[in-house]
C-alpha cells in the first residue's frame, strides 16, 4: 500500500485536520496508523472518563492541543450533584510528566483547581491558549499563575465559569514583556480588576483582537481601552452606564467610530436606555451580536439597534424582543445563520410575554440561511413547525424550549408530534435536536425513521411508553448523545439494544422508570460501559432491591474502566 514515501504521506496528512477524518485515516493500515498518530497535533476527548490520559499521550506524542469535556450536559441545569467528577488535574499531571509540548488546553464542564492551573503554567514552556467553558473550582489566584508564567500566552478565554474572585491583582501579573495576547475574555469574573493594569496590558498587546470585559469595567475605562486598541474585532462591553449627554459618552462615541474592524459585540451587563446610540456606528459591520445578558435594554431600543445590523450572522438575544422584534430581525438580517432567544422570565422581568410561534415563523421566512436555533418560547404550534421545516431545510441544530414543557399546540390542543416530525423529515442534515411541549411516542417514531444524521437528542417530559425510546435507539444510526429526563421510559427500553451504547458517547436518564436491577444487568453484561447511578447528595443504598427506580443514571462507553474519583453519592455499577 506504500506508493509514496512516509514523508509524503505525512505531508498529505497535514492537510487533514478534522478529527473524524484523521480517525478514518488511522484505520487504513498499520503504517498509516503509525504515521497519523505520530503527527496528530490536536485531540478532542469528548468524555474525559472514556480513556486515561496516559493512553492518549502514548498514542499521540506530538500532541499540541487538547480539548476535554467532563460533566454531562444536564449538569448545566443543576441535575448533576456537586462533586460528581470531571477533574482535570490528573490530565495536567500526566501531561506534565511527559515530553508533550502542550500549547493549547480547552476544557468544558470540568473541575479546575488553582493547583492545576499552577502546574499547567509551570510545565509547558510554549503554552499559548487556555479556554475554559462552564468550568468551576478555581480562583483568580490560579489565573494569576497563568498570567505570570505563560510567557507566550495568546489566549485566555473564560466563558461562563464559576470563579472565586479574590479581587486580587491577577491582571497585574502579566509581565511587561508579555506582548503576545490576541484574545482576553474575563467577562464571567465577578470582582473588580486593576484598571490601570488592564489599560497598560492592552497598550502593549498590538495583536489583541478579542477583548471581553466584566461588569466592573466602567465606560470611562472602556473608552481609554478602545483608544489603545482600535484594531479590536470582538468586544465584550462591561458596564455601559453613563449619562448620554456627558463628555465621557461623547468621547466614547468618537472613539468607537475608529473601530473599523469590529464585527462582534457582546456583554452589556449594565445598560441604561439611550446609551446604545454610542454603538450605532459599528452596527452595520457587525456579524455577531450577543445581547442575551442585557436585561436593561428595552424592546424598542433593540428594534432600533437591529435595524442597523444588516450583516448579522449570529444573534443571541432575550425574548423581550417579542414577535414583532423578531419580524424586524427577519426583514433586516438576511445573512442570519444562528439565532438564540433566551427567556427573560428567569430574572423576574414582567414585560410583554416573550415570544411565540409567530416570531419563529417570521424568522424562518426572512432568514433563509438559518442553520442553528435555540428558542425559548411561550408556545408553539404544529402549523408553525411545519412552516419552519419547509422554510429552513438546511437546519443543523434545532432546539426548542417551551417554558411550560408539556404544553400542547394551543390552537388545536394536539401534541406537537407532527410539527417535530416535519422538522426531522425536512431538515436532512439535522445533527442536534431538543424537543419540548406535549409529545407522544409518535414523535420518536418520526425521529427514528427520518433523523438519519442526528447525533444529539434531548428529551424532557415526553413520550408515553418504552416504544418511544426504542424507536430512537433503533433508528438513529449516528446517535452519540441521548439525554432524557422525566419521561416514562423504563427497563425494556434501556435493555433492548445494549450494544448500541458502545456506539454512543453517553446516555443520561433521570426521573424515568428505569430500575436498579436493570442498570445492574446492563453493567454486568457490558464491560466497556460505566453505568453510574446517583441521587441528589444521598448515599445510594446498594442493598435496596433491584425493583427500585433510579433517580439519575448516566452511562458512557469507556476504555478506562471504573473511575476511582467518584464521591460517595455516586454509585458505579
Amino acid at each position: 500500500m506504500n506508493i509514496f514515501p512516509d514523508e509524503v504521506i505525512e505531508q498529505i496528512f497535514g492537510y487533514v485536520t478534522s478529527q473524524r477524518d484523521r480517525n478514518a485515516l488511522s484505520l487504513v493500515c498499520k503504517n498509516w496508523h503509525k504515521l497519523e498518530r505520530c503527527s496528530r497535533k490536536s485531540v478532542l476527548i469528548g468524555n474525559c472518563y472514556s480513556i486515561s490520559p496516559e493512553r492518549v499521550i502514548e498514542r499521540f506524542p506530538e500532541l499540541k492541543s487538547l480539548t476535554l469535556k467532563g460533566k454531562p450536559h444536564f449538569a448545566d441545569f443543576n441535575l448533576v450533584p456537586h462533586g460528581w467528577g470531571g477533574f482535570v488535574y490528573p490530565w495536567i499531571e500526566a501531561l506534565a510528566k511527559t515530553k508533550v509540548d502542550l500549547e493549547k488546553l480547552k476544557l468544558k464542564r470540568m473541575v479546575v483547581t488553582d493547583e492545576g492551573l499552577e502546574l499547567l503554567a509551570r510545565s509547558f514552556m510554549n503554552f499559548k491558549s487556555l479556554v475554559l467553558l462552564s468550568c468551576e473550582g478555581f480562583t483568580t489566584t490560579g489565573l494569576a499563575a497563568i498570567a505570570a508564567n505563560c510567557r507566550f500566552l495568546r489566549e485566555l478565554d473564560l466563558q461562563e465559569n464559576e470563579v472565586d474572585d479574590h479581587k486580587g491583582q491577577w491582571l497585574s501579573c502579566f509581565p511587561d514583556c508579555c506582548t503576545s495576547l490576541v484574545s482576553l475574555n474575563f467577562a464571567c469574573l465577578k470582582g473588580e480588576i486593576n484598571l490601570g493594569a488592564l489599560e497598560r496590558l492592552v497598550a502593549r498587546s498590538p495583536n489583541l483582537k478579542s477583548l471581553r470585559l466584566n461588569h466592573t469595567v466602567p465606560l470611562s475605562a472602556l473608552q481609554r481601552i478602545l483608544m489603545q486598541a482600535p484594531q479590536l474585532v470582538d468586544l465584550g462591553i462591561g458596564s455601559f452606564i453613563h449619562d448620554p449627554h456627558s463628555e465621557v459618552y461623547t468621547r466614547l462615541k468618537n472613539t468607537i467610530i475608529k473601530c473599523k474592524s469590529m464585527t462582534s459585540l457582546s456583554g452589556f451587563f449594565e445598560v441604561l436606555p439611550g446609551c446604545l446610540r454610542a454603538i450605532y456606528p459599528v452596527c452595520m459591520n457587525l456579524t455577531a451580536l450577543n445581547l442575551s445578558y442585557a436585561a436593561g435594554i428595552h424592546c424598542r431600543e433593540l428594534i432600533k439597534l437591529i435595524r442597523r445590523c444588516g450583516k448579522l450572522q449570529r444573534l443571541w438575544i432575550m425574548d423581550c424582543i417579542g414577535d414583532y422584534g423578531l419580524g424586524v430581525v427577519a426583514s433586516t438580517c438576511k445573512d442570519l445563520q444562528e439565532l438564540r432567544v433566551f427567556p427573560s422570565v428567569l430574572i423576574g422581568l414582567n414585560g410583554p410575554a416573550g415570544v411565540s410561534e409567530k416570531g419563529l415563523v417570521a424568522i424562518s421566512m426572512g432568514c433563509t440561511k438559518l442553520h442553528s436555533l435555540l428558542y425559548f418560547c411561550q408556545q408553539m404550534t404544529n402549523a408553525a413547525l411545519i412552516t419552519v421545516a419547509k422554510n429552513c431545510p438546511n437546519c443543523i441544530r434545532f432546539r426548542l424550549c417551551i417554558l411550560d414543557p408539556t404544553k400542547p399546540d394551543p390552537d388545536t390542543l394536539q401534541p406537537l408530534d407532527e410539527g417535530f416530525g416535519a422538522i426531522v423529515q425536512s431538515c436532512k442534515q439535522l445533527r442536534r435536536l431538543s424537543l419540548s411541549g406535549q409529545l407522544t411516542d409518535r414523535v420518536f417514531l418520526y425521529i427514528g425513521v427520518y433523523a438519519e444524521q442526528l447525533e444529539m437528542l434531548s428529551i424532557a417530559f415526553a413520550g408515553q411508553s418504552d416504544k418511544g425510546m426504542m424507536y430512537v435507539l433503533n433508528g438513529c444510526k449516528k446517535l452519540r448523545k441521548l439525554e432524557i429526563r422525566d419521561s416514562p421510559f423504563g427497563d425494556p427500553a434501556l435493555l433492548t439494544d445494549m450494544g448500541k451504547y458502545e456506539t454512543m458517547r453517553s446516555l443520561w436518564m433521570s426521573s424515568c422508570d428505569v430500575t436498579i436491577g436493570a442498570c445492574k444487568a446492563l453493567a454486568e453484561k457490558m464491560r466497556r460501559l460505566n453505568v453510574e447511578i446517583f441521587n441528589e447528595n444521598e448515599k445510594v443504598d446498594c442493598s435496596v432491591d433491584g425493583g427500585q427506580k433510579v433517580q439519575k443514571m448516566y452511562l458512557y462507553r469507556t476504555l478506562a474502566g471504573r473511575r476511582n474519583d467518584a464521591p460517595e453519592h455516586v454509585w458505579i455499577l
Partner: protein
Amino acid sequence: MINFEETELRLGLPGGSASDHGELTLKGSGGKRVFSETASVDLKLNLSSNNDSASVSTTTEKSKEKTTTVEPTARANDPAKPPAKAQVVGWPPVRSFRKNIVNVQRSNNEEGEKSGGGVAFVKVSMDGAPYLRKVDIKLYKSYQELSDALAKMFSSFTIGKCGSQGMKDFMNETKLIDLLNGSDYVPTYEDKDGDWMLVGDVPWEMFVESCKRLRIMKGSEAIGLAPRAVEKCKNRS
C-alpha cells in the same frame, strides 16, 4: 419490521383523528403519562396573564403500566391556590450563570417607561405649515386613526399612507420605497431617546409610550430615517 403505515407523515395541519393503531395508543386527551414520584410537580409558571394554560397539574402514580393516561386536571388557573412560582429543577434549561445575572437597572427602566396618566399631548409640526398643532395621541387606537386625524388637521396637504397597513409596509421594502419616493408627506416622530423615526415602525402601543413629538415631512426628506436596507435600494435605483 416497522409497519410503514405508521410512518406516514401527514404534513397537513393536524386536526383529523390520529390513526389509532394498536401500537400507539393515543387517548383522547393526547395521552398524559406517568411521572415518577420525584418529578411530580405543579407547573404553574408565573407568566403573564395572557398565558391561559400555565397550569398543568400532574398526579403521582407509581403505576407499572406502560401506557396509562392521567386525565389532566382543570386547565384554568385555580384562584384558590397562590400563584406559585413552581420550580421544576433544571427547567427551563438555562445555565446558572445566566440565571444569576441581576440587572439593577431594569426596575429603573420600568419606572421610566410608565407614562403619566391617560393623556399624551405631543406637538405636531408640518414642513411648510405656518402653525403647530397639538394632539393627544392616546385618543387614538391605531395608526390609521392617527393618520386620519392628521389628514384632517393639515387638510391642504396630502399625507402618505401610514394606516393600519403602515406597520406591514415597514416590513415591505418596495412599499416603503414608493412611499418615500413620492411627493406625499410622511409622518415622523421623535422618541424618548431623542431619535427621529418613521411613524409606523413599532407596534402602536410602543409608539404611544415613546412618542414625544411629531413632524410631518416630505417623503424624499424622510429617506434618512428609513431602515438601511431601504436606503440602499433607493440609492441603487
